[in-house]
Structure formats: C-alpha cells, structure tokens
C-alpha cells in the first residue's frame, strides 16, 4: 500500500492540494472550475502522454510545442479547404512526418534527441510562420463546420481520457510497450537481444508527433482558428509533468498514470495561485518555480525511499 502510494507521489500531492483548495476557496471544488481545468489540461495531457513514451524510451522531444501550434494552424487551414477530413488528416500527416524524420535522424543516424528535436522545434515554428505569411494570416474554422463539434469541452476531455487508457494498455500490456522500456533501460542490450531498436525509437517519435498534432487539432477545434502564438515553451511543461509523474528522464521506467497526475497537478497549482490572487504576474512565476522545486524534490525523495 505504502509502496503504491510512493509510486503515485504526484497523485498524493494532487489529492492534498485539491482538499486544501476546497477548504480555502468556495469556488474551487466545483464542477465548473474543475471541468474548465480539465478541458484546458487536455491539450497538455495529450502532449505529455507522447513525452512520457519518448522519455521512457530514453529520449526527449522538444518539438512538441511547435508541432502543436503548427498542427492547429494546419487544422484550421484544412477545415477551410477540405472540411472535417482536411482538418484531421492534414495536420496529423504533417506532425507524423515530422516525428518520422526526427525519429529517423535519432535512431538511424544516431544523433542526440535533444538536438534533433530542438531543430524540430525551430523548424516547425518556422514552417508555421511561413504558411501564415509571418504570422499575419489567420485561418478561421468555418462557423458551421462539423470540425467545431470536436472542440466541445466534453469531447476534448473524453479524447484525452481515451488516449491515456490506450496509452496505458500499450505501455504496460503490449510487446511495443516492453520494447520501449527495454530500449530506454539499456539500448545496447535491447539491440543485442534482437529487438528492433531503431524501429521502436522511430515509432515513439512518430507517436509523440501524432499526439502533439492531435492536441493541435483539438485546440484549433476549440479555439475556432489556427492561432500562431500558442505552444511556446509547452515542451518544458510537458517534461515537468512527466517528471512530476515519477518517470525518470534516464529512461527505462515510468507510467502514464503518473503523467496524468502530473499534468493535473500543474493546472491545480496554477489555479490555486490564481485564486489566492495575492501575487502579481512576476511573483506568480517565483511561486510557480518554488512549488515546482518542492514537488519535484518530494517526488524524487519518495521514489528514492522506495529503493
């Protein structure tokens, strides 16, 4: 039992904060507030899911924030040209291809994931600016488009939940999941054991790209347009959520449930700071940083005690 709880350090902290928030603020533990948070968290949740898989495989994906924004723009563009199908296929195709290229560079040419995906970050952002004529063109999802239905809050949350269920099963119960753990745990050994290491690594970057793309599509549906300014620095939030969720950046271990708790934790902390209303924007960042330190240290100490 205690071991279980330790593994779910983020969940424990989350529950404590929720209870605290409920005690302090009348407007906190309401379906309205929590529902809105869930909707807003669904995008980061999708991205962090992909990040979890990448990190378990021993890599990192810094391109997700840019890919997210790019897909949003492409989805809006697609919806203006080809309706629902265009809004779905175009961005997913592009984000999948970006993932494929990154994965190939990392797995086949053995380049460092950090650098490859940093290039991906720049590239996707540049591409986004190119297709929006340096950010001056905004593509609007046509008002009557079926695509808008996807942007409904409930639908967004349901998509994220399904993604996590699928992700959890894939990671824990399929050979692909085992391969991720093996590659992240000891890449050389995995290769000597005859696992298709390169293919596994490529797949995981494709999946990460697709999930970021999916988040972008979801955001375009919700926002009703392809917003160019979103997703900056999102990769760091995703990494933070993954780590808070107990996944080691060294690869080879981790779970998607922890990541979900980590994402929720980030949003709850932000909302609590906001409801406190005591800080100006600068102080807010100081507090966020401090809270991040506390949470991560707690998480690390908990998981170390487990050993």
């Amino acid at each position, binding site marked *: 039992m205690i071991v279980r709880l330790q593994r779910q350090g983020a969940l424990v902290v989350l529950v404590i904060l929720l209870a605290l928030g409920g005690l302090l603020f009348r407007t906190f533990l309401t379906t309205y507030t929590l529902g809105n948070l869930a909707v807003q968290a669904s995008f980061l949740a999708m991205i962090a899911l992909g990040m979890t898989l990448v990190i378990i495989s021993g890599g*990192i994906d810094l391109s997700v924030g840019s890919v997210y924004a790019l897909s949003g723009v492409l989805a809006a563009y697609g919806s203006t040209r080809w309706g629902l199908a265009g809004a779905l296929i175009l961005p997913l195709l592009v984000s999948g291809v970006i993932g494929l290229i990154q994965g190939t*560079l990392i797995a086949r*040419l*053995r*380049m*460092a994931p*950090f*650098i*490859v995906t*940093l*290039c*991906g*970050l*720049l*590239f996707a*952002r*540049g*591409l*986004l*600016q*190119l297709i929006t004529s*340096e950010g001056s063109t905004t593509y609007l999802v046509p008002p009557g488009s079926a695509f808008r239905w996807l942007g409904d809050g409930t639908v967004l949350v349901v998509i994220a939940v399904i993604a996590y269920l699928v992700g959890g099963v894939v990671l824990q119960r399929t050979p692909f999941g085992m391969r991720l753990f093996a590659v992240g745990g000891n890449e050389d050994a995995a290769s000597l054991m005859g696992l298709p290491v390169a293919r596994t690594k490529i797949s995981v970057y494709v999946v990460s790209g697709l999930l970021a793309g999916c988040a972008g599509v979801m955001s375009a549906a919700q926002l009703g347009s392809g917003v160019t300014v979103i997703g900056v620095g999102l990769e*760091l939030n995703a*990494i*933070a959520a993954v*780590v808070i969720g107990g996944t*080691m*950046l*060294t690869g080879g271990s981790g779970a998607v449930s922890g990541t979900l708790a980590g994402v929720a934790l980030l949003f709850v902390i932000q909302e609590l700071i906001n409801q406190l209303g005591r800080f*100006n*924007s*600068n*102080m*807010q*960042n*100081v*507090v*966020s*940083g*401090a809270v*991040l*330190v506390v949470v*991560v*240290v707690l998480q*690390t*100490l908990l998981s*170390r005690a487990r050993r």
Partner: protein
Amino acid sequence: MLKRTAIRDYGVYLALVVLVVINVVITPSFLTGDNLRTQLVQVVPVLVVALGMALVIGTEGIDLSVGSVMAIAAALLPLYLGYGVVASILVCLIAGAAAGLLNGSLVTFAGVQPIVATLALLVGGRGLALVIANGQLKQLYNPDLLALGTSSVIGIPLTVLVALVLVIIVALLVERTTFGRQLVAVGGNRRAAEFAGLPVKRTLLTVYMLSGVFAAIAGVLASARLTASDPSSLGLLIELSAITAVVVGGTPLTGGRVRVIGTVAGALLMQLISATLIKHDVPASVTQMLEAALIAAAVLVQRERRNGK
C-alpha cells in the same frame, strides 16, 4: 578512416571557415574590422553562457536556468551601483553563484534530474528578477559600467577581451587542473568516479555554481553593452543557443568530454549564421527553418560514429 575522424573532430571549424568564405563572397563589407567586431561583440553573452554550459554538459547535466540567472544579474546590477561598479558586479556574481548552488544542490543532494532542477529556476528566476526590478527596465548611467560595454583596448572591445580571458581560464581549467579532469570523469562514469574516491558531489556543485557565475557575467556584460538593465527580456531562450553552441562545438550531451575551443567555434558559427540571414534580409520563418537545418547538419557531421556500423 582518418579523414572521417578529422571531419568529426574539426567539423565545426571547417563549417566556420566555409561560412566565412561564403560571406566574403556574398555579403558586402563582410571583411571589415567593424563587421568582425560586431560579430564578436554580439557573440559574447552566448559564448560566456556556453562556457559554463559546456562544463555542466561535461558532467552529463544541463542548465536551463542560465537565461533567468542573466536576468537576475541584470536586475541586481543597478541596485548597488551606488557602491561602485566593482561592488555591484560582485553582488551579481554572488547571486549567480547562489543560483548555481541551488541548482547544484537539487541535482547532487536531492537527486533531482538536472533538466527539471534547473527548469524550476528558469521559471522562477525571471519572475524573481522582475520582482527585484519591479518589472522595470532601467537605463544605466554609470560611466565605468558603460565603458565596460562600449570601449575598446587596441581595437578589441572590452567585453570581447573579458570573454577571451574566460575562454582561456575555462580551457586551462578543463585541460590542466584536477578539478577539470575530475569533472570529465564524473561525466564519463559517475559510479566509477565515486569508486575512485573522487569528490563527486563537490565537483557537481562547483560546476553548477560556475555555470551560474558565468551566466551572471554574461548578464553584466550584456547589460553594459545595452546600457540598460532589462530583466524582462535579457537572456530569453539563451539556454537553447548556448546548448546548441556547445553541442555543435563537439561536446556530447552524454558527458565525459568538454571541448572549450569547439564551443567557441560553435558559438561563432551560430552567430555567423544568424548574422548572415539578417544581413540578407531573410524572413523570420525561413531563418528559423534554415537554422534548424544547419544545426542538424553540423551535428550530423560530427556525431560519434558507432564502430562497426
């Protein structure tokens, strides 16, 4: 075989030379003293930050907080100018060391992974800088400080000289001192370093503190050049430029090796790429995509090749 290794080891210098040659051909007034000086002056902050970053990366770590530490230094700088330039710069450096101490403690004692440990200060540090400065950009009027930012000695800008001295110090530190060799050993195989009785924790702490101090120095130099303390935007995203410079310069992210001169070349390369694109008025979108491609190409050339593959 030999040629391949040479390309790998000297790839960044080769790329630098190629870029210079291209520029000499296509960019008007490229080979003028003014232009070369400009490039050197502009590269200073990234270079100084990258020196500290190279040390951190050598231990298999990373420091995302450097930009925010620059901002903290910039915010502190005007507060103590009343006590003289030296005193106020000293305060900035102490703040940088303190920031590094925080990062290093999280990494060594709490065992937090470097990327997340320093992420906290990336987020909180800039907030802190803005709190210190009350959100304001402040014009700097201290003549000594402005001299640091704008004057030259025998035609070489002072900030460039400072950077040069730092490069030499770091190069000696890495190559010639116990500390430098221990640092590389810790990055190469931390457990073996522990078994060999090296002061692993002290080494890591020192490395992060150095990175903080270097970031603070960069903050001071950049502010002096800007003639203003601008905590809101100083050093934004510089961590990425610095990491890129280090890696392009041939220091692997997996630690165990630090290439100081390579880092200098890497920083210069990145500076030249961006200068070239600005001078030829390439739009931001294309600039970003080209930069991505060029970084990838530079790293691809000098990646560690697997034997037998």
